[in-house]
């Protein structure tokens, strides 16, 4: 490789637009070249992170399938595949604009629908794919809590609304200034910190899941005549475990990727993320062991996810030890929350989505107010940050749970939300899709 390269060639190598009359063009300076290279690197990392987050869809699909019964496997898989597909389109045409478009009010974006006129750009498209998979993550959380009894078509309608409206509008409050720096975003402007979306993504999904499961009612046979909860075991722990590993993997795109900058803190964020997940798994296993006398696998798997959800908001701003504590607390919370929702609230959440994403997402967001090394209470930052975090958590709950109740209630009253008891007993696979998941296998359908 010769040391002498015509500058035009260099411009091309770096993908810089060659100015007209390039001959007279000023030589690109060190600053410009350096920035271009870093930009390319950021595009590379943000794309790879987006791909990893996309893969979390497979993780959710496997977890939800594994934790539910074989007779409903096709249905839950279809729901996972379709909420992503429908969501991709809805977010592209509308959601993205509402979330990141020009925003003077701080309450909703107003342009960039379908990214019209952005054909030339490079970063904005990278940002779009990254945000699309985030939106789809919020959407897919709900399917697990509403599993085994929700009408397929009704679920499709729901998944349009969340990616079209519910998720992006809240998102614009907390993240609306990520693309256009001059945008207003009322929560962000108050100093609300949710680095990768404990609230923006997970709690929003979790509270919608709570609303859905509530309006829908429990699965047949979930509660005895005496109201005592009955166990309805999932049909494949191996698939569920695989799903959790995939989610854990994807989270390394979710959190470190939210820097959208290659290098720098990526490694640090990966460490806090991993420590929180590990602590969540270990602690939840111990708690379950103590309470239920056995190391319950499904709780332990939920515990790892709980740790991941909890650290998502603070992964960039807490100490490594702090991350482990936050994740461990998530592991405690998820076990208690699952039992509480199951026994006290008597809301039937087959996979524990509300506890993992809703409750632990809220915990993780609040934890920033405690553990953030700059503004956290435990680091002498006082109550200010904690208050703002609480405000954000509250706003998220009101917005998602409130709108969720309305949305699901309207669906219930119009097209109907739930399949017939008969179909539920025989399984949604046959009823909704006319096929079975495990053809040739003898599967007991006594529950």
């Amino acid at each position, binding site marked *: 490789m010769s040391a002498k390269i015509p500058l035009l060639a260099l411009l091309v190598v770096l993908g810089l637009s060659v100015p007209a009359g390039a001959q007279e063009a000023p030589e690109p300076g060190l600053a410009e070249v350096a920035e271009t290279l870093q930009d390319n690197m950021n595009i590379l990392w943000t794309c790879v992170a987006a791909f990893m987050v996309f893969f979390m869809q497979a993780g959710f699909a496997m977890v939800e399938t594994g934790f539910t019964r074989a007779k409903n496997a096709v249905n839950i898989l279809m729901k996972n595949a379709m909420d992503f597909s429908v969501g991709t389109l809805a977010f592209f045409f509308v959601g993205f604009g509402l979330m990141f478009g020009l925003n003077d009010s701080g309450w909703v974006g107003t342009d960039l629908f379908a990214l019209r006129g952005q054909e030339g750009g490079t970063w904005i498209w990278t940002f779009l794919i990254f945000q699309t998979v985030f939106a789809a993550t919020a959407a897919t959380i709900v399917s697990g809590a509403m599993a085994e009894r929700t009408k397929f078509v009704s679920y499709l309608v729901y998944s349009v609304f969340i990616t079209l409206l519910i998720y992006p509008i809240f998102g614009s409050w907390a993240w609306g200034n990520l693309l256009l720096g001059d945008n207003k975003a009322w929560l962000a402007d108050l100093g609300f910190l949710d680095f990768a979306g404990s609230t923006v993504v997970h709690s929003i999904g979790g509270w919608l899941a709570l609303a859905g499961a509530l309006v829908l009612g429990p699965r047949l*046979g979930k509660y005895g005549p005496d109201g005592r909860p009955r166990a309805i075991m999932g049909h494949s722990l191996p698939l569920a475990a695989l799903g959790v590993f995939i989610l854990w993997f994807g989270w390394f795109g979710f959190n470190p990727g939210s820097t959208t900058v290659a290098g720098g803190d990526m490694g640090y964020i990966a460490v806090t993320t991993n420590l929180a997940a590990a602590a969540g798994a270990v602690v939840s296993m111990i708690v379950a062991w103590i309470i239920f006398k056995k190391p319950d696998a499904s709780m332990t798997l939920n515990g790892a996810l709980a740790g991941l959800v909890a650290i998502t908001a603070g992964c960039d701003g807490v100490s490594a030890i702090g991350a482990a504590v936050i994740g461990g607390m998530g592991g405690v919370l998820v076990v208690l929350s699952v039992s509480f929702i199951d026994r006290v609230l008597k809301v039937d959440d087959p996979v524990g989505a509300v506890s993992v994403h809703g409750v632990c997402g809220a915990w993780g967001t609040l934890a920033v107010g405690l553990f953030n090394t700059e503004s956290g209470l435990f680091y002498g930052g006082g109550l200010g940050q904690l208050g703002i975090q609480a405000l954000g958590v509250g706003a998220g709950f009101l917005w998602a749970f409130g709108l969720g109740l309305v949305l699901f209630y309207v669906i219930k009253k119009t097209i109907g939300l739930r399949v017939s008891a008969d179909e539920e007993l025989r399984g949604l696979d046959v009823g909704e899709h*006319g*096929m*079975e998941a495990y053809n040739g296998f003898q599967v*007991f*359908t*006594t529950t």
Partner: protein
Amino acid sequence: MKMIIAYIQPEKLSDVKQALYAAEVFKLSVTNALGCGQQKGYTETYRGVDIEVNLLKKVRLEIAVNDDYVQPTINAIVKGARTGSIGDGKILVMPLEQTIRIRTGETGAVAIG
């Protein structure tokens, strides 16, 4: 002694078991089966091709009882399994000549329970 075989809807199993306990019938064996009876099947489609599914999932009970237990057992099964709709199932009673408890070698009436 009689051997009572019953085909019931899978989701009725727990009700039937409770009814049997109430009738003090504690020992039984369960297998799952595919059944074809008056109950009509349904069509599945796979990749655009129809499939007539006329073998429906059933649960098969096998209960060996002493003669005086036959009627109570039948009643219990009917009590637990009946919904009045097609597909409720069927009970079949067959003669049973001998019973041996492997553990003790006991035979006959005592071995059954």
